[in-house]
């Protein structure tokens, strides 16, 4: 992802070191009990040779108390992906802890203490897998040494299991808690001297472990952002300018102030262009004793706006314009071979334009944040994917040093990229400062859909050529959509390398001529990143075109994909990318290579599991698509049934995935199940349109997401066994599902899909 605020650069090439926490470190940590045995893990950025260059700060703490409780300070936001479970379980497994005695404490947003906490880009497990295991292994060795000393036996004869050190030969065992005092006095062993578990020794990694918040969630006691309260807290609901860059000219709050419970009306300065992700929109806030009074008061506000330059913007018109623009020559961004010649010499040329709309995140918990400003300090509670970004943005807005701002992370009622933008937290902080009251800003669903950081609309055109020998000889991909970068810099009119590197410039297939061209597209809304980002429209175009090519060549699409991937090898793209680089999701491509063999393996696996090629009754069909994103290899086969009334139902979805070492099988499966549903909404339902500069859709009646009766019914997830470094699973399920569904619909009905959401009547 090309996200300017992300701290990932610092975290590239990271090494770690385990240390014993001193009393001073200890006092600085919230959430830990006094006493006990505490390890910290330090992270360092490295240069190419592996030499440490920057200290990124102690990142993780692990405490074992004298009662045997294992406390792990986790520092990643939980938004449904199970990270608050997966990271601690890695430590717990290596340590040999008893899971029921493991307690998870959510760290506050503090970069000095925990390093970058930005939770996006399917990043968490990938980054912390090894350091977490090492911390667990070091603690284990210290306990074994302590026990060995006590029993007068060799350390090598000891092991750990279920929160105890055991001496295999004598059958003796002793709880961790009883060894804490001795373990504390021992020197920290060198990482080189520890032995990590072998795969078959894992008790939790690679198994299904329930999420830690499960019971609280089902009993209704889990605390999301919306559930936080402090004494004397007031609620703010804001009327924001419906058009990007528009500003409040004047307002009349007479009727608003007459609503019982309404306390104050405060205008918010904002509406800057570029909007960035941290600045508030221009608006008027209604502060009230309760949410209902604030909503009512807001509805009665009479605001006159200066709507600004985007007031005539119409999204349907932009799609039309881009559809013409895309027929011209663009800026060449990747070039291999000679496409023009391939086209001249082709036996057959297939060309189509692919259109996809704006999308909103629609987390069921709308944005909200609570802020208290007192004595030059600010404390915030918010469902945020990026607490440090929030802290810096708040500090900036309030004009205080970042050290004076404390951000508490709550559970997130969905994130999908929306809650990594701190704009709503800044609103709360500004209002708290201005009013002198503790303020919870509550977005309504309407606010959320009107003022999101939208997934951008997109127009793409692919021209593919087939030569005299029935081979695909040329591939020309034209792309036009407003870039995420335009949110930060309005002069950006074309996609960034990072956006193209999500399927388009890393088109992996062995076609002799490949040309990727981009076109200008202006941003008229705040553009953001949504679960799997630009992979969505790019892979929709690519994977449906490949299906069409297979048909034209009289080939099976699965066989074609395997052939086009060619021999097992690692591929690179850099020498073909014009004036740029392939981002590889922020990772060094020599460490995380693009391996055709791994891709072929998931394709073969999914074809076998879905029984690809089987005959289906009329009106039913199977469709295939494969795609690597966020370093994870995924292949997908969708079975669809289309009724005479064009009603689409999806009885089966098969996924095969290679995400390296599988840490928590159940949460990988659930991410794929959810990813299919998320993509089904994109394929079948969701669309944001804009008229006169303002979003048309107001709520879940007009902005639709799939409901249970139309949702894909059985989602089968086949995980490839691997000992490779683990990679993310939050985003990779989304991209291939939509084109696989489109291809299945073609198989069932003979109708090709070139526009999302799918409309079979059109």
């Amino acid at each position, binding site marked *: 992802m090309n996200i300017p605020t992300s701290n990932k650069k610092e975290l590239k090439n990271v090494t770690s070191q385990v240390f014993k926490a001193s009393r001073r470190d200890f006092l600085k940590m919230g959430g830990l009990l006094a006493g006990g045995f505490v390890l910290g893990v330090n992270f360092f950025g490295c240069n190419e040779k592996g030499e440490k260059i920057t200290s990124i700060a102690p990142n993780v703490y692990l405490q074992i108390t004298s009662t045997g409780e294992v406390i792990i300070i986790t520092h990643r936001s939980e938004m449904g992906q199970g990270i608050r479970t997966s990271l601690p379980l890695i430590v717990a497994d290596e340590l040999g802890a008893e899971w029921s005695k493991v307690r998870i404490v959510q760290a506050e947003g503090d970069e000095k203490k925990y390093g970058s906490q930005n939770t996006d880009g399917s990043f968490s497990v990938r980054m912390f897998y090894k350091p977490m295991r090492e911390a667990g292994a070091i603690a284990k060795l210290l306990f074994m040494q302590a026990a060995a000393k006590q029993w007068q036996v060799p350390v090598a004869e000891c092991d750990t299991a279920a929160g105890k050190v055991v001496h295999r030969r004598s059958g003796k065992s002793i709880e961790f808690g009883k060894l804490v005092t001795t373990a504390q006095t021992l020197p920290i062993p060198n990482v080189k001297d520890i032995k990590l578990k072998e795969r078959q020794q894992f008790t939790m990694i690679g198994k299904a472990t329930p999420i830690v918040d499960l019971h609280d969630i089902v009993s209704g006691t889990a605390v999301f952002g919306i559930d936080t309260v402090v004494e004397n807290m007031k609620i703010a609901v804001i009327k924001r300018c419906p058009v990007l860059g528009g500003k409040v000219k004047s307002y009349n709050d007479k009727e608003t102030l007459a609503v019982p419970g309404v306390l104050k009306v405060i205008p918010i300065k904002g509406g800057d262009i570029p909007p960035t992700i941290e600045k508030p929109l221009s608006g008027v806030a209604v502060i009230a004793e309760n*949410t209902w009074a604030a909503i009512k008061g807001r509805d009665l506000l009479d605001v006159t706006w200066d709507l600004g330059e985007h007031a005539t913007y119409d999204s349907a018109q932009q799609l039309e314009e881009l559809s013409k623009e895309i027929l011209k020559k663009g800026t060449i961004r990747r070039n291999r071979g000679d496409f023009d010649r391939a086209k001249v010499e082709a036996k057959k040329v297939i060309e189509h334009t692919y259109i996809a709309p704006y999308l909103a995140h629609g987390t069921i918990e709308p944005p909200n944040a609570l802020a208290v400003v007192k004595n030059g300090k600010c404390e915030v509670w918010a469902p945020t994917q990026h607490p440090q970004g929030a802290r810096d943005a708040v500090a900036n807005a309030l004009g205080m040093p970042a050290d004076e701002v404390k951000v508490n992370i709550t559970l997130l009622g969905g994130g999908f990229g929306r809650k990594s933008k701190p704009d709503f937290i800044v609103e709360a902080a500004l209002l708290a400062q201005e009013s002198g009251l503790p303020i919870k800003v509550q977005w309504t669903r309407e606010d959320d859909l009107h003022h999101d950081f939208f997934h951008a609309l997109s127009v793409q055109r692919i021209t593919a050529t087939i030569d005299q020998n029935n081979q695909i000889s040329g591939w020309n991909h034209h792309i036009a959509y407003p870039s995420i970068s335009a949110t930060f810099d309005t002069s950006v009119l074309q996609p960034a390398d990072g956006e193209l590197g999500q399927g388009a410039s890393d088109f992996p297939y062995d076609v002799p001529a490949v040309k990727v061209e981009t076109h200008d597209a202006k941003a008229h809304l705040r553009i953001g990143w949504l679960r799997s980002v630009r992979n969505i429209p790019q892979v929709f175009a690519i994977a449906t075109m490949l299906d069409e090519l297979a048909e034209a060549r009289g080939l099976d699409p699965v066989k074609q994909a395997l052939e086009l991937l060619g021999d097992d090898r690692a591929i690179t793209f850099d020498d073909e990318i014009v004036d740029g680089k392939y981002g590889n999701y922020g990772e060094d491509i020599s460490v995380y290579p693009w391996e055709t063999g791994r891709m072929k393996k998931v394709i073969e696996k999914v074809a076998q599991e879905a029984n690809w090629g089987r005959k289906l009754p009329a009106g039913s069909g199977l469709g295939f698509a494969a795609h690597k994103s966020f370093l994870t290899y995924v292949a997908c086969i969708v079975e669809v049934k289309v009724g005479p009334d064009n009603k689409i139902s999806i009885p089966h979805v098969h996924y095969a995935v290679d995400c390296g070492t599988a840490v928590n099988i159940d949460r990988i499966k659930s991410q794929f199940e959810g990813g299919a549903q998320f993509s089904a909404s994109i394929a079948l339902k969701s669309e944001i349109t804009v008229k006169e500069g303002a979003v048309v859709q107001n709520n879940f009646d007009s902005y639709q997401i799939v409901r249970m009766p139309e949702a894909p019914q059985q989602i089968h997830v086949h995980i490839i066994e691997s000992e490779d470094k683990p990679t993310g699973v939050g985003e990779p399920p989304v991209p291939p599902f939509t084109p696989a569904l489109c291809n299945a619909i073609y198989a069932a009905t003979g109708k090709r899909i070139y526009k999302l959401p799918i409309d079979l009547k059109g």
Partner: protein
Amino acid sequence: MANYSIQVNDKTYEVDVMDDMPLLWVLRDVLGLRGTKYGCGKALCGACTVHLDGTAIRSCSFAISAVGKGKITTIEGISANGDHPVQQAWEQYIVPQCGYCQTGQIMNAVALLKSNPQPSEQEIEQAMQGNLCRCGTYNRIKAAILSVAKA
């Protein structure tokens, strides 16, 4: 503003609120029962589902003035320790992802099973279609409900 006396989870509460205040905000903001969630405010997502005399209602679109003598049950009131059979099934199938929609889903499922203890898959889909889950936990919800129906 008016004074209402309402029955929630077998307790009587006196509240002094506007007549049109939706039950959702009375529960959350006035009574501090925050297990019931806000998702849309327009009866479109089901996050705010509670029971009125055992029937599922969308509390975001149900004014306090309409509650009358009816008995309200929220997620906090369906079991003492979060161990209602439906809640247990939710844990067994590890239904939640972010979890935000789940209290509404559970309340809707409990009401469904009360009126129809042996629902078919299709009946479950129909009954649950008012409850959105953006994380996509629908299939586990269905499996959890079916497991309770069979038990």
